[in-house]
């Protein structure tokens, strides 16, 4: 935005850049702001209002959420799943990000394409792909039937399948976060560590890991927050008995037309996300989240 505000248009030599800079950027983002206001802020406001007015005014829904075992279980389930997914993407993503940072420029570019390629395919498609892979007539079922005989294991519509699919869908965010942090480490710093007597394992432990920590925190936060609100994947291939909050919200609306209850749950989800991001912001600054 700052670049846009700079007085580089060259029309009037005596223009006052500072004065111009104050309104120009706002003018440029005005369409976006209008769009967000109309299609995001207004509905969000409606949700907030509905959560305390539908069907009757009061905080009944929130009381219900706080006291009803089902909702509490869903919330706990959601947080646990998001945490598990975040940790799994970290464990799986770190070696990949590390290899990317170590690779030569060509190899790194190729790996980057492979990692970001999954961004190009809709995650709905990727979710369906997992349905095929894990399904009753899929390759895994076939393999298990051929090798072990008997009935194939129930893979689909379990916690396992939704976790697996979400890890797959969210791992690029983790890899990119880690890669950004690892790339920022100067090669000379690693070399100096070695020249000072650190064997490779110590270089990794004492230099690479601590310097990658911001990327780890970024990646965990990003994946955790994205996972909290995940809807399609858990609904399509997750266990119907162990739903996540977004699925429950959808269910409330579609099945019971319980808009007030769904709104209250949405508010809880929104608040949870805001709390996570708020903690991150206080500690690290939100502007760093996207690298």
């Amino acid at each position: 935005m700052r670049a846009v505000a700079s007085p580089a248009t060259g029309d009037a030599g005596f223009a006052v850049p500072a004065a111009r800079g104050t309104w120009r950027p706002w003018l440029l983002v005005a369409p976006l702001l209008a769009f967000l206001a109309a299609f995001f802020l207004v509905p969000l406001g409606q949700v907030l209002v509905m959560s305390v007015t539908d069907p009757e005014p009061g905080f009944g829904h929130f009381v219900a959420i706080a006291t009803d075992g089902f909702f509490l279980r869903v919330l706990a389930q959601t947080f646990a799943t998001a945490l598990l997914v975040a940790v799994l993407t970290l464990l799986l993503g770190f070696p990949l990000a590390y290899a990317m940072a170590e690779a030569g420029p060509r190899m790194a570019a190729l790996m980057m394409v492979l990692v970001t390629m999954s961004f190009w395919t809709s995650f709905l498609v990727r979710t369906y792909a997992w349905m095929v892979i894990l399904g009753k007539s899929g390759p895994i079922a076939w393999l298990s039937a051929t090798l072990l005989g008997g009935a194939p294991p129930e893979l689909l519509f379990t916690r396992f399948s939704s976790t697996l699919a979400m890890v797959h869908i969210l791992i690029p965010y983790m890899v990119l976060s880690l890669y950004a942090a690892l790339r920022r480490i100067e090669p000379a710093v690693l070399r100096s560590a070695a020249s000072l007597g650190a064997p490779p394992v110590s270089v990794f432990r004492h230099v690479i890991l601590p310097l990658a920590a911001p990327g780890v925190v970024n990646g965990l936060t990003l994946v955790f927050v994205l996972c909290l609100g995940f809807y399609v994947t858990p609904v399509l291939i997750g266990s119907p008995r162990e739903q996540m909050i977004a699925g429950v919200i959808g269910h409330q609306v579609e099945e019971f037309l319980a808009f007030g209850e769904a709104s209250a749950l949405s508010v809880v989800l929104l608040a949870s996300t805001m709390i996570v991001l708020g903690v991150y912001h206080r500690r690290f600054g939100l502007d760093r989240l996207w690298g």
Partner: protein
Amino acid sequence: MDGAYLEIRDLVKSYDGKTRALDRVSLSARRGEFVTFLGPSGSGKTTTLMVIAGFEAPDAGLVRVAGQSMAGVPPHKRGIGVVFQNYALFPHRTALQNVMFPLLMRKVPRAQAARKAAEMLDLVGLADFGNRHPRQLSGGQQQRVALARALVFDPTLLLLDEPLGALDKNLREQMQLEIKRIQRALHVTTVFVTHDQSEAMALSDRIVVFEGGRIQQDATPLEIYNRPRTEFVARFVGDSNLLRARITDPGAGIAEVEGLGPSRVLPQQAQVLPNGQGTLLLRPEALAPAEADAPNRLVLAVEEVVHFGDSALLIGRAGGVTLRARIGGRAAQGIGAGAQVPLGWRPDAAHLIGA
């Protein structure tokens, strides 16, 4: 080799398989010696340093430190202190922790490591800065931390790759003296890389001049300045007048010099010049206001005068060639463009370079 502490023989290194970054580089250093690699960018100085430190493997040749071959020894087992151009401090550790690092890697107990690191910080003049992180230190201070960190474990060698490149001129000169003082105090064998000839002159016991992956000359600073072996060295180190010369009488030491006509040179130099052809190097300060007994005389038609206060540089023409003469500031007073200044030079102030 007699007393060679660092010995490098016939190093060859190519990064791309075609061009040689190092082409048969051989040199040695005695214990406690301060050797400087001097050369333009891309001449192979850093590559040589990285081979010594173990970060690059040579295609051929050997490196020996204290009589031990370094072939196959990984960097962390070489015990060589390296200071990189951009300091390469650990950004997540304080100055003291940075300096403690090599000691902790050597299993020195923490308390003892902290004490030793603090002493070393004191030696580089940063006793009060141990708790700061690198980003809270100025360039010069970071430089000192890097130096302390590379020295605290009593390295067999100290390698510095253009360590002062990022500092401004005053700080540079201050740090040069500092490095020299510390190096003397610890008597550590040091290889210092720079592309700045005055820095090399100021610091070194010996200068190794690199060009195109080869060593052009390996000698003391004065030798390099007064008797450069090649035109490249003459041009790269100091200011110079280089004139084609042909020996006409080797016995008497007479040479026909481009623009200056028949001139007296040192017979012992004239006699060893291959084919009697070569280049005469006249440093600008070798051209002095002529006295009656100067064996070689000329009149400089001054075109430009640059005053430095203590001295002045006269740029002008004589006999169809452009010459630069450096004379005392007082003698230069009143000389301006257009002046005709009689100058002279003595045979022993000039140097003949083989063609």
